């Protein structure tokens, strides 16, 4: 047993922390939140220049060939910011979907571009009846001219703003759900950001989009399921990093905010909130890293651990933000303070790739209950 990161993971973590603090500063994130697309582009290019998008891309496609735990270390640091989800959608979910379900041609064409930061991917799976099981797919793929016509509305798609490619689910003629790799610039694709208490969430309309036969991914919806399973604890690591940052902010505030002549952290009612965050973040950390280890080692019960960690990490981030707001009171809701960056992200990530209830249903199934 060894619960420490490896030396190279520690080095990666230190480098990532430095870069995230510099580039994904609170000031920059507030600008991104206000819709500064030029800045989003600049930051993506810097991330790409660091070689990070290739972390999971196998070396034969020009990537690092890292383990899921390696990727998680990066994501944990991005979560501290909290940096936008483009990196996860592209370099984790996108890469894993291509590895699990893509044709050799698709991998050859796309993986090197991802590794060099030239392609970004968004997963367009969910629709009007929101959820993560394949029975909910209504978008149709109709055979036409040796290819397909895709028609439907994808709803609550994450990170579509600068995506070049869409991983798109659609119901085939035989009733099965297929998976397509779709060029986002094709005629008939329209992307609309959704306003409100969301992070980088979009509606994508597919209006009889004509795609070639080669855009169909041979692995299909089952491959996407596998890719999501592997991605979940990497996203969990992002939530762990985010919880750690929320904890740091809250502890610091509890130690410096004076009321009734004392730092408010001297009051046990306040301490309860801080301790709640510690308990949530530690539960998220260890369930997440165990799931990553089980996936990296191909343990037979890895899926069980993944569903545990996904349920725990999403709940942890959500509740940690709530507890942090209890401690910060008025200051916490001032945008410039930065806590609401996390609160907003914690809400979006709560349902993304399945909310805790979804994962508990899956967990019960894995346990044969």
């Amino acid at each position, binding site marked *: 047993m060894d619960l420490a990161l490896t030396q190279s993971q520690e080095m990666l973590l230190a480098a990532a922390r430095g870069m995230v603090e510099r580039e994904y500063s609170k000031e920059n994130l507030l600008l991104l939140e206000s819709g500064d697309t030029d800045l989003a582009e600049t930051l993506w290019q810097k991330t790409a220049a660091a070689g990070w998008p290739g972390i999971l891309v196998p070396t034969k496609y020009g990537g690092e060939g890292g383990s899921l735990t390696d990727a998680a270390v990066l994501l944990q640091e991005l979560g501290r910011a909290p940096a936008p989800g483009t990196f996860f959608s592209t370099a984790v979910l996108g890469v894993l979907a291509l590895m699990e379900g893509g044709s050799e041609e698709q991998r050859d064409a796309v993986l090197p571009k991802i590794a060099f930061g030239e392609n970004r991917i968004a997963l367009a799976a969910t629709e009007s009846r929101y959820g993560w099981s394949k029975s909910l797919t209504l978008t149709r793929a109709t055979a036409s001219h040796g290819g397909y016509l895709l028609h439907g509305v994808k709803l609550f798609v994450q990170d579509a703003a600068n995506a070049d490619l869409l991983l798109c689910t659609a119901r085939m003629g035989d009733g099965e759900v297929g998976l397509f790799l779709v060029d986002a610039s094709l005629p008939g694709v329209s992307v609309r950001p959704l306003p409100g208490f969301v992070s980088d969430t979009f509606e994508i309309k597919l209006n009889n989009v004509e795609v070639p036969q080669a855009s169909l991914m041979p692995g299909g919806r089952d491959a996407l399921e596998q890719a999501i399973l592997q991605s979940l604890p990497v996203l969990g690591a992002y939530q762990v990093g985010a919880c750690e940052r929320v904890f740091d902010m809250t502890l610091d505030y509890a130690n410096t905010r004076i009321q009734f002549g004392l730092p408010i952290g001297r009051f046990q009612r*306040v301490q309860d909130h801080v301790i709640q965050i510690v308990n949530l973040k530690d539960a998220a950390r*260890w369930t997440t890293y165990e799931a990553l280890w089980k996936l990296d080692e191909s343990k037979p019960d890895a899926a069980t651990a993944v569903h545990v960690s996904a349920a*725990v990490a999403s709940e942890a981030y959500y509740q940690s933000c709530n507890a942090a707001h209890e401690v910060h009171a008025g200051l916490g809701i001032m945008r410039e303070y930065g806590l609401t960056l996390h609160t907003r992200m914690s809400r979006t990530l709560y349902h993304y790739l399945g909310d805790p209830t979804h994962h508990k249903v899956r967990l019960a199934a894995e346990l044969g*209950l």
Partner: protein
Amino acid sequence: MNFELTSTPEQETFRAEVRSWLDEHAPPDMEHPADPGQLTPGGYKKQRQLGRALGKKGWLYPTYPSEYGGGGLSAEEALIIEQELDRHGFTLPPYYDSGGKLGAASIMVWGTEEQKAAFLPPIFRGEVRTWQLLTEPEAGSDLANVQTTAHREGDEYIINGQKIYVGSTHGAEMSWMLVNTHPGGPRHQNLSWFMVPMDSPGVTWAPMDLLFAGNERGAASGHKQTVYFENVRLPAFNLIGGENNGWRVAATHLELEHGLMQTSLRGDSLWERVVRLYKEDKSGGTPLMDCPDAPNLLADMYIDSQIGRLFHLRNYWLQSTGRPVTYHGPQAYLHVKRSALRTAKALHRLFGPYALTTDQEVGLEDGHVEVQQRGSIVAQHPGGTVEIQKVIMARRLGIGRGEPQKSGRLK
């Protein structure tokens, strides 16, 4: 990272040795009552026999130095012994011996060479079973408020007072206790820590009438006692760590009691029982209880048990690799306490009134489900209430203080 408790080939050889030895020395007819209060004197005698046999091999307190009767073994080897005993439904020691598990650590840190040589070998060899005497009517969460006094007369101390929530069913040969040696003195500098032979004249005890006495599977206490001290004379030699230094001596064992005990790495036998019940129930055709929420309740219970397992695994790793352990013990303990109540409610919802009866015909799993209903409530206070665990966590994290508080000395 690697979350597996792996063994070297040498350790696997050791495991085989322990396993075959236990198969020979742990009689198959040993008692495992769901409520440890039901342990018969004969069953208790067998536990002590096994303890003495383990003690002879140095396997009863495996990590302590062999010069004092311990095994001089590594934490990994100790864990192997724990795991193998677990297969027989026992912990190490196979009877309640909080005195040895906790008190011995304080004696190792604070005792003189003569004191270690006198007190530790009988405990480690299993000849002596030891109770801890801490709580009093006016000293629960505020342990430093103990009112039992000891005053010195020549080479002796004379003890008067009363301790509650002590020990187990079938008596003990020794105890250790925290008493006040400086009434009116400054708080935390007025206490002393003593070893007490339980056959000293003036020591008497009587069982308390409780909902349940606490369950540590295989080593549960059964009953709790009130222990009275009336002019009990103790040699000054039995004072450990010096007069009025008792709070620091106690900090050592309190540190261990607050969630740093390896026995927590055992498997979750209750979970296995519940899943078996639930699955039999589903396939048997007649559900015990109409509970549409069952898979969700079981998923929550499973998640709680996984978090608990991982907290204890982390603590074991931190300790065995010499990394700092601060708020981690109380965090694990807090989780155990809190999740016990959640589990109790889940079982009540899963099995309805079946969960509450020990009836031979309709009760579940020989009373193991019922005993959890009571045990979960009782589990809230030993080793400090939920609130006390949070107080310790807050201090160790430095919430509101800036500077984190230091842990009790373990070496």
